[in-house]
């Protein structure tokens, strides 16, 4: 079935993030693990908070990254999977009901398909595009909550649906960037969803887990509870905000702030009299107190985690999270981010990197979670494409129904 894939057995993932652009070419191994064939990253220009603000410079940046990739990987690429984030990503919920009209009231695949259709039929404003329709648990006669209703009996079947949707304008502009490179975008995936696919293990998903992807311009989160996706969200705050806070607090340039964040930053405040020496400017010696630096970073990180906690708590999800919190994305590399998250969520917290991902230098790289999740999606869906080629719709792929309903563990390889 892989024959349909122009790139042979490989797929390409492209993450156009706020701080970096990443291309990843990967192929499936026989044991369902993934081997990375090539990787190219480049600092992004022309984007803020995941949205194109300067088209020309964004295009140049993508071209350069692609060029870099082609130097390491000689086979030309044609198609790719694109990730997407930004504060414009929102979710809507809907519940659909159907009557089970069979004589013996047995629920068949037909009813399940029908109830999914009903639940997925939501009306959104014209400028919104649905990225994923995610199905949660089913209910039979408004009582029993089940994961797979086929074969059970009941008079009425209900399905809960969570739609992830984004702004058409932002999607169009990202898609156009890809088209300008003469590449075809096979599907667009919400980056938080992709990251989760890369780092969550099946047993964690079963006990309930929250994945927080700390990106450059946005923080995405996705919560699994009761074996389904219970919440998805984006906060338009990321590592760039931490850098900007530092720059504003100590009167530094963004570059200097970024440097001291990487070298001395920590999410945990500390009482210390140490000071960081900065390169001389106008022949003046400059120092930043380490305790102050950490206070500034702590305030921002505490607020970010606090806002996510508030949202999850208000939906009653946190109580169903047994496996704790997974921090991923480049921001997870901030020292003691996990310690702070553990304190705020009151749950065990770990920094998670993509797993079952092989290749040189692929170990412990939380910042690659999104792109690794993209190729995982890609490999699974390209292999499905032979079966369901008609279902692939430009920019709007309703494959998530299968992912999250019946074959959900397949995402995890």
């Amino acid at each position, binding site marked *: 079935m892989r024959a349909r894939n122009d790139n042979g057995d490989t797929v390409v993932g492209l993450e156009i993030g706020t701080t970096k652009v990443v291309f990843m070419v990967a192929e499936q191994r026989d044991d369902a693990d993934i081997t990375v064939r090539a990787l190219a990253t480049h600092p992004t220009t022309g984007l803020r908070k995941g949205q194109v603000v300067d088209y020309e410079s964004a295009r140049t940046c993508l071209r350069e990254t692609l060029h870099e990739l082609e130097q390491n990987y000689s086979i030309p690429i044609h198609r790719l999977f694109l990730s997407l984030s930004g504060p414009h990503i929102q979710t809507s919920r809907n519940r659909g009901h159907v009557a089970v009209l069979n004589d013996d009231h047995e629920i068949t695949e037909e009813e399940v398909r029908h109830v999914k259709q009903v639940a997925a039929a939501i009306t959104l404003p014209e400028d919104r595009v649905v990225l994923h329709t995610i199905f949660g648990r089913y209910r039979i006669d408004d009582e029993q909550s089940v994961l797979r209703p086929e074969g059970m009996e009941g008079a009425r079947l209900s399905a809960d649906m969570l739609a992830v949707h984004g702004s058409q304008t932002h999607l169009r502009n990202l898609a156009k960037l890809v088209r300008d490179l003469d590449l075809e975008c096979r599907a667009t995936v919400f980056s938080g969803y992709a990251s989760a696919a890369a780092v969550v293990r099946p047993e964690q998903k079963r006990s309930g887990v929250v994945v927080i992807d700390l990106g450059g311009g946005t923080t995405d989160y996705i919560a699994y509870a009761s074996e389904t996706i219970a919440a998805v969200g984006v906060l338009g705050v990321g590592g760039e905000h931490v850098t*900007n806070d530092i720059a*504003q607090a100590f009167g530094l340039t963004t570059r200097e702030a970024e440097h001291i964040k990487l070298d001395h930053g920590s999410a945990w405040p500390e009482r210390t009299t140490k000071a960081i020496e900065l390169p001389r400017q106008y022949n003046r010696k400059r120092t930043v107190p380490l*305790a102050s630096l950490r*206070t500034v970073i702590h305030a921002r990180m*505490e607020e970010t*985690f*606090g806002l996510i906690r508030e949202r999850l708590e208000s939906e009653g999800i946190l109580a169903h999270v047994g496996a704790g919190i997974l921090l991923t994305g480049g921001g997870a590399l901030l020292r003691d981010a996990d310690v702070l998250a553990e304190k705020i969520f009151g749950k065990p917290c770990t920094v998670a990197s993509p797993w079952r991902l092989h290749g040189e230098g692929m170990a412990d790289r939380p910042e690659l979670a999104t792109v690794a999740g993209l190729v995982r999606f890609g490999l699974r869906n390209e292999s499905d494409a032979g079966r369901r080629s008609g279902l692939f719709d430009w920019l709007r792929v309703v494959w998530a129904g299968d992912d999250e309903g019946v074959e959900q563990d397949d995402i995890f390889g």
Partner: protein
Amino acid sequence: MIFSADRRDYARQIKVAAIGGGACRALDRMLLRWPRPPCTVAVDTDDRSLDASRAAAHLPLGGRLTKGFGSGGDPRVGKLAAEESVAEWRSICADTDWMILLAALGGGTGTGAASTLARVAMSCGTRVTALATLPFDFEGNERMQRAQRGVRELHAACDAVIATSNSGLVTAAGVSEPATAAFAAADGAVGFMLTALCRMIQGQGLLTLDMPSLQRLLGGRAQPAAFGFGRAEGSGRAATALADLLACPLLADDHRLSHANGAWVGILAGDTVSFLEIETTLVELRAAMKPEATLLTGVYADESFGDEFNLAAVTTGARRKAEEPGLSQLDVSMPLSSAARRPSATEEQLKFDPPKKGRFNDVDPTIVGGEDLDIPTFIRRKIRFEAAR
């Protein structure tokens, strides 16, 4: 000499926004007897209430969330609805110098949305004063608790909050029968206060009041403000009105003029008012107050008041100890609830003036819970630390 082609350039742009059903109805009743009102905006989650409103502009909140059916008495819904409609609200606040928010607390929309809208207005550079009414005693404990929580949130979000109870308004107006008259009297009192404030600020009076002084008076934040009034006509009207004001049941306990730390008193009278009446009233008022208390005054004379002599007062009570613990710089506590987080306000306490967004200046702001998250957290939370050397 500079001539302005448009006189409105000088006029202070004041807007009055009624948030929630209760406030919208109250505003309607006020507009019936308000000759030259400032720009009014009705804000609600309920389409029916907006359709019925006489306000100049209507802003439906959270159309996608509530579908125009109201908040069902849930402040959380009110808050979310406000967050959904932040962009529209921002455009209303854009050219406004002073926004007076009118909220009848205790329900869903007014209680939930007011503080969020106040924060957004503040972030637009608008001065925000909230005039909040607490529910009638008979409306029950739950509504009262919700309303009090609403007042606390407003305190954290506005320049000044003037809170008053509906029951007190009815008592003060001295009308309780029939019910319609009692409600009208309560609204009339709030409307009177609004009119008095607007006229003074707009500079239409003989003695006017500038916004910064009023803000200094009310802006102590931790100190709640209350309002009261006194009315009389005919002979000896000045003395009677003052006695009426001093005895006003709305100004109780800490807020009694004799106990207050600060007060603004406006005289609104017919154009027959004499200089002697004004002078005597102000001298006696000063004598009635504590010597160290601040007294700001305004005088407004207009033929529409006929023979009346009205006194309107806003008083701030005894300064309370700060109600919440300060955030020490190394305080590793759980995040404070949004109520306790203070947005940028009294700038003299900030290290940076005005709040800087640095590289996020030119992009769409990230507004969550009415706070602009692009502004560094340490600025919004007023966290102090040792600066760079």
